């Protein structure tokens, strides 16, 4: 029963990791950009939520109403103003610019908020639990977070495959030059994709802030979790990313149960094993 609980916790944590990964995966899919600052943007969203809850006096989950549009706007401006300039054949510029951005965000947050650990309070929901069956309890908040993750991924799938905007994303990803011939301003399309990615980042950031302590330096670790979830699940498949996140979460939970110091290591090892045995991931999208 103990192990079942452990695995269940891992599954629910995996939902959060899948949310970290979804934004990353989206951007890579649309414009082949890997945003090294992705994790730091999640932390930035957490701090934006901190400011919103302090200023407005609302529950962090309610602050999403403000944080999501704010981050989306930041994403649009970031892509349009900076990252669009790095896109192209050469691998180095986007990598190095987003790496530089990561350093800037981390140190900027350090200057503004100090290295103090923070956490947002969501009230009673944080400790509420539900009984699933005899001896098996789960927290309401982790369950909510998992449900939101599933909802986000379902929403993204819907957007990509059933809407005109999604069509525009896919076409621009396939062939940016011909997409222009359709009347699509690719600068604008890429910026919309980044805005969408940061909207997802905003949700992930708020849940992160409520769930555990955060400080300016924890960004890179979130990037790594998101990245590992994407690779384990398989590139190009959002539901695969959910599976990847779950596997990562469960590996970490099992590792933590064996020895608290083994939590992160267990996750990395699971990632490396998958990389060794099935480098294309568990559910890669078959190229059509």
């Amino acid at each position, binding site marked *: 029963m103990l192990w079942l609980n452990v695995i269940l916790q891992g599954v629910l944590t995996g939902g959060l990791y899948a949310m970290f990964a979804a934004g990353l995966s989206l951007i890579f899919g649309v414009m082949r950009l890997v945003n090294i600052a992705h994790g730091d943007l999640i932390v930035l969203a957490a701090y934006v939520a901190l400011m919103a809850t302090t200023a407005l006096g609302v529950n962090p989950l309610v602050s999403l109403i403000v944080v999501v549009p704010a981050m989306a706007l930041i994403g649009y401006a970031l892509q349009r103003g900076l990252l669009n300039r790095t896109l192209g054949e050469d691998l180095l510029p986007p990598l190095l610019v987003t790496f530089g951005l990561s350093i800037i965000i981390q140190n900027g947050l350090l200057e503004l908020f100090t290295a103090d650990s923070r956490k947002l309070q969501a009230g009673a929901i944080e400790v509420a639990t539900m009984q699933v069956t005899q001896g098996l309890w789960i927290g309401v908040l982790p369950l909510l977070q998992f449900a939101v993750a599933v909802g986000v991924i379902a929403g993204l799938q819907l957007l990509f495959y059933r809407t005109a905007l999604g069509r525009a994303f896919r076409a621009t990803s*396939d062939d940016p030059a011909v997409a222009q011939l359709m*009347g699509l301003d690719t600068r604008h399309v890429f910026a919309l994709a980044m805005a969408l990615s940061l909207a997802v980042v905003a949700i992930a950031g708020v849940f992160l802030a409520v769930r555990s302590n955060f400080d300016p330096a924890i960004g890179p670790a979130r990037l790594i979790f998101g990245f590992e979830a994407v690779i384990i699940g398989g590139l190009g498949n959002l539901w695969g990313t959910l599976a990847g996140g779950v596997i990562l979460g469960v590996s970490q939970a099992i590792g933590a149960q064996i020895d608290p110091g083994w939590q992160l290591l267990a996750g990395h090892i699971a990632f490396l094993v998958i990389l060794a045995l099935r480098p294309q991931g568990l559910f890669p999208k078959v190229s059509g």
Partner: protein
Amino acid sequence: MPEPLLDVRGIDAFYGDFQALFGVTLAVDAGAVVAVIGANGAGKSTLLKCIAGLMHPRAGAIAFDGDDITSTPAFAVVKRGVSLVPEGRRLFPSLSVEENLLIGAQSKRPGPWTLARVYELFPVLAERRHMPATALSGGQQQMTAIGRALMANPRLLLCDEISLGLAPIVVRDIYARLPDIVREGLAVVIVEQDIVQALRAATKVHCLQEGRVALAGPASGLTREAIAAAYFGV
């Protein structure tokens, strides 16, 4: 004499340091079908790319319906009513046939072309509407590419080497529908290596040779010798 719909005047185009077009001049009247022929590398595709806004000439000017579009970016040129069927079809592999057609209408220009009408023109596409676009045969892909360009309700359609890689019977089938396409007064520029089809379909012909206009005139008035001389530069 009314102003031409498309007025290309003395454009020079470059790929880096390599000059592809030298002072090319061309005019297309509303509702006319103009052919641009020439050997490989003569500059035909470059000319179309400049008109469509994918490239910009370093000298000269391009005017469409009186407005200067020399340095207008491609996505804005489409909105004015110029649509390009790119060389090699270049359908979007991630999109189905129908999605490829729908994205053609992204610029939301008003006009007679709708999904229904494209399916009427090319019934075989309706049967395959939900298949991935790249799963179709070459001829069907070409039809999809033409349909996609038509969905933007252009006033000027640019066709880059429609016959490339297709069997002659398929090419004839596609060209047979040209009258249906130009019914409402759509102007067309056809770039072709297949001279026979081009001359049959067009009223005016330009021949490019190594980036220069070597010959221009009404399709009916040109002899085979004159064309061969202009084509090959002998």
